[in-house]
């Protein structure tokens, strides 16, 4: 059962993780506090590996990892961490024949909710949080992808954990439910450390105070979302044709082209940059100038 820790933090110092000859993470330094931190990065950037480290599903190959002041390498401390942890992996396999209620109830049992009335009440609470109150008795195999995703999220929310690790929680979830889930996560993040990875930059923009961009196992940017977006000011413009000076161009719904370029362009129709623009810029190369707020490397 989750216990809120007022001075909760997760600290990584020079953390690395390899799988055989493949380096998934290298020299990661992070300090995570209560609030929502978004992880962005292309496929294979190391996001899932980092989340698995934070969730104690995987040990680091090198460096120091501390979760809530506890060392996950020590079995007793690892168990203490797990008592205060919620984790939604990228892929959740659901045992055959389980209903949503039965699955979340099963995970609640493993999380030491042994008293049936309190456990059932908690299972209903978390299913309600993810908008599945009326589908508790429905078999998971008969649910849509988005509903299954919400069942997976519900089990992570059991006990209002002090640390909530979510790997692509909104993938396949419809826009209305995504808004509901953002509200739920924002409320939890008032006292808990929430770390989520996603490919949806709008989720990060709407929910996260802080964003960490990973690329090939390294932290490329760590700082406030607003600062990252500010980096793209003057580098996003509309034109009737794709601009060869742009790093990325695409045709928008209006028929005009949105151009995002590494250099500040003059004499063009500038528009307000989005987080996606800033992220694409970061991916395309480095900025001309030193970042104003966060740390880009």
């Amino acid at each position, binding site marked *: 059962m989750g216990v809120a820790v007022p001075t909760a933090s997760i600290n990584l110092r020079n953390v690395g993780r390899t799988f055989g000859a493949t380096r998934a993470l290298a020299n990661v330094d992070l300090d995570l506090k209560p609030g929502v931190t978004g992880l962005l990065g292309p496929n294979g950037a190391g996001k899932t590996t980092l989340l698995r480290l934070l969730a*104690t599903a995987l040990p680091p190959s090198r460096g120091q990892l501390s979760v809530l002041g506890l060392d*996950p390498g020590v079995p007793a401390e*690892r168990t203490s961490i797990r008592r205060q942890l919620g984790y939604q992996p990228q892929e959740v396999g659901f045992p*055959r024949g389980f209903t949503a209620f039965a699955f979340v109830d099963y995970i609640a049992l493993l999380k030491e909710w042994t008293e049936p009335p309190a456990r059932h009440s908690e299972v209903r609470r978390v299913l309600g949080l993810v908008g599945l109150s009326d589908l508790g008795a429905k078999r998971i195999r008969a649910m849509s992808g988005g509903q299954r995703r919400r069942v997976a999220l519900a089990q992570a929310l059991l006990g209002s954990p002090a640390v909530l690790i979510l790997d692509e929680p909104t993938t396949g979830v419809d826009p209305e439910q995504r808004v509901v889930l953002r509200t739920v996560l924002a409320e939890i993040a008032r006292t808990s450390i929430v770390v989520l990875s996603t490919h949806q930059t709008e989720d990060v923009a709407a929910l996260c105070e802080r964003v960490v961009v990973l690329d090939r196992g390294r932290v490329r940017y760590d700082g406030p979302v607003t600062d990252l977006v500010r980096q793209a000011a003057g580098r996003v413009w509309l034109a009737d044709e794709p601009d060869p000076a742009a790093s990325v161009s695409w045709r928008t719904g209006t028929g005009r082209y949105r151009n995002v370029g590494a250099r500040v362009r003059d004499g063009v129709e500038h528009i307000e940059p989005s987080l996606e623009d800033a992220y694409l810029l970061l991916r395309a190369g480095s900025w001309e100038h030193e970042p104003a707020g966060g740390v880009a490397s």
Partner: protein
Amino acid sequence: MTGWHLDDDALRRYVERTDSLTEGASAEQHLLSCEPCRARVNAAVDVIDLAAVWDRTRDAIEVPRPSVFERLLHAVGLPAHEARLVAVASAFRAVWLTGAAAILAFAALAAAFGHDHGVWLFLAVAPVVPCLVVASSYDPWMDPALEPELVTPYPALRLVLLRTIAVLALALPTVLVFGLVIPGDAPFGWLLPAVGFVAVVLAASTWVSPLRAAIAVSSAWLALVSLLAARFGSPDAIIQGRAQAGFLVLAAASFVIFILRRRQLRQLRPWG
């Protein structure tokens, strides 16, 4: 208006839905024509915890009913929550257990009526069934919720051992039943091989997946039994004391390896 009224106890039972079907129907009929009793029902409903009634209603719909196996585990002393943790494994679903029992029953019938060939068949099949059920009870391919399970505080090793013990506990009464229909020592001769193979599967699953281990052990055993059956007419080679002692040693050695390498179980391996 009728000449009688519901007494307090009957009214309470009606409101709480704890009355019998007949009594409830009678109360319902009376309430249709008795204004004072309807007023008393309204007053009584006010003091009922409607939230609790609603929770009970939802429990009846949503909470999974304990299977016969789960109730059995609880009856023999396992706490209710652990009985649930053991019994939810796919391997303990009624359909699997019925299938396993049917295979054993078929082999037992062959042993009862098929003389030595039947006994060979029984000795080939009976020991591999428990080891396949044990492997299925904690193999992630069967129950793939591995990662959410992995990061919970409940000890994975305890879960694996509880499920293993549950399978072996099912095997014992089976031996007693078979003892009634199969002549000779064959009904008892399969138990130690079964225990040995289960221990081998536990030990081997610190290197490979449990189901792969069980399939390898079962295949090796079936091949060995075929060879022995071809060479010796009588199944005494397996049932006799020396062979049985060998299975006991195999079980003990495998269990020691399992305990020494327990942190290499797939459920624990990341932190081994």
